[in-house]
């Protein structure tokens, strides 16, 4: 089983969100970057589990500058075998997908696993674009993946429950909660990650969209505190003031 896992970096969840240059650029100074949680917890760990049970290899692919190398080393420490970084600072999903599909084509991968979205742009676009560019089947929001020969059994979140889908390999999927449990890298993993191959390739692709401006939501008004002994008053306010019930 030859598995490619798409790994993106993302600002740590607790980061202060601010923008510079008239709202055009995310203020990254002082921001701690992490492996995008959906890529790490769900896609990468499930890829490693499948390799452990079926044999094969796990390669990670990241589109970004050398600033991404620490999160790529983290993915290697968790258990990926090798990594590729496509050396473009991306601004759009079409651009990222073109670069990943360009890299993955004719490499003999059986599975391309992605997190369901990144926690910065919340796009959820790249995985299906890669599938279309490669003309492979695709499942979004997969919560379970088993592989039996050339057929994958996948569960996905669907309105009101889960759907079971059978798909032929090769396959692209985006992983959501349930797919795997977070793995903390051990000391041996961290040490071995330093010597695992991290290949850097150049590339070129055009974005199809462009963020013109980021804005912060208006500050939240003060919380209206209702005394516990008048809890019933809350229900009146929800109906008459907030008009939500």
């Amino acid at each position, binding site marked *: 089983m030859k598995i490619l896992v798409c790994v993106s970096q993302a600002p740590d*969840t*607790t980061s202060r969100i601010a*923008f510079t240059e008239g709202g055009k650029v995310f203020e990254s100074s002082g921001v701690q970057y992490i492996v995008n*949680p*959906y890529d790490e917890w769900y896609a990468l760990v499930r890829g490693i589990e499948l390799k452990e049970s079926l044999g094969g290899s796990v390669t990670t692919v990241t589109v970004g500058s050398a600033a991404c190398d620490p999160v790529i080393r983290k993915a290697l420490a968790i258990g990926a075998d090798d990594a590729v970084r496509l050396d473009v600072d991306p601004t759009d*999903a*079409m651009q990222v997908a073109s670069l990943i599909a360009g890299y993955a084509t004719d490499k003999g991968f059986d599975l391309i696993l992605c997190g369901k979205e990144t926690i910065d742009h*919340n*796009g*959820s*676009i790249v*995985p*299906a*674009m890669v*599938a*279309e560019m490669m003309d492979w*089947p*695709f*499942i*979004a*929001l997969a919560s379970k993946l088993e592989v039996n020969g050339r057929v994958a059994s996948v569960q*996905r*979140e*669907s*309105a*009101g*429950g*889960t*759907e*079971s*889908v*059978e798909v*032929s390999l090769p396959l692209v999927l985006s992983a959501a*909660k349930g797919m795997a449990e977070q793995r903390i890298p051990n000391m041996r993993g961290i040490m071995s990650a330093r010597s695992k191959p991290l290949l850097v390739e150049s590339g070129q692709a055009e*974005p*199809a*969209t462009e*963020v*013109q*401006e*980021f*804005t*912060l*939501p208006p500050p*939240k008004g003060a*919380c*209206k*505190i*209702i*005394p*516990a002994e008048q*809890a*019933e008053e*809350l*229900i*009146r306010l*929800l109906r008459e003031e*907030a008009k*939500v*019930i």
Partner: protein
Amino acid sequence: MSVLAIVSLKNGQPTKGGLEAASYAAAYAKSLGTDAVALISGSIDGDGGLGATGVQRVLVHAGGITDSSQWAKLGAAAGLEIGADATVISHDHFGRAVGPRMAVRIGAGMVSGVTALPKSGLVRKNVFSGKAMADVAVKQAKAVYSVTPNAFGIASDGGVATTESFDAEVGAVREQVVSFHAASEDGQVPLPEADLVVSAGRGLKGPENWGIVEDLAQALGATTACSRPVSDIGWRPHHEHVGQTGITIRPNLYIAAGISGAIQHLAGVNQSKVIVVINTDPEAPFFKAADYGIVGDAFEVLPRLTAAVRALNS
């Protein structure tokens, strides 16, 4: 020039996300002075309520397809047929699969999870898990938009749409749906679609105490949810977990009892229109994100709220 809405069906009805996509497409078409056309695959009664959302025509593909690659081919053919420059789809598992595939197929720029109509060439979406918004320009002649659930609403003041059959070459099936398991047997609205949500965390002290949460949810017609620790230790099922690594929701009302409001939890719920927090700790960070708060014991407060809702309803 027209606007295409791609609408998935469930049990012979458009999904809620599909109706939202149709409503968005119709409103956008109206702002451009053109028509909106919906595309479905399968069979519906009449126009399936799509006319009410404001679309003028429904293209009906008889195949009942679910495969994302087939849908992208069908959507691209329909867009070509009606001369669509913009395509609108839901931002659920269906739209996240079909939308990007179609964008690649027709060479469109895609903006996902939009929350408002495009205006002056820009469309707004939430980024950084609701902590910021981005105004995005599409650099191609064609655009694909997926609509954030519960952000735009379903219009009901349209008329009746005409239906006409539509066919296209869609290729082979590679993704075969084999079964569906309902998440809950009690008829609750699924969490991503719920308008009202009652959620609880470790402050409830144990799974045996969830009756008071379920009672309030039932009285309100709300869906139950929980925090990550509660689903991790198995007090509640995983599909109820809202937060950064679980489900992101955007209900009209989110009531959180016994949840401190860690930033990872807020990332999944901070786009709710109204947030109510009930916590014994007045310093709980969740109060800073709340519209209404009660500093008190959930075991006393929740039953009083339930009684108040029942009194209001009777």
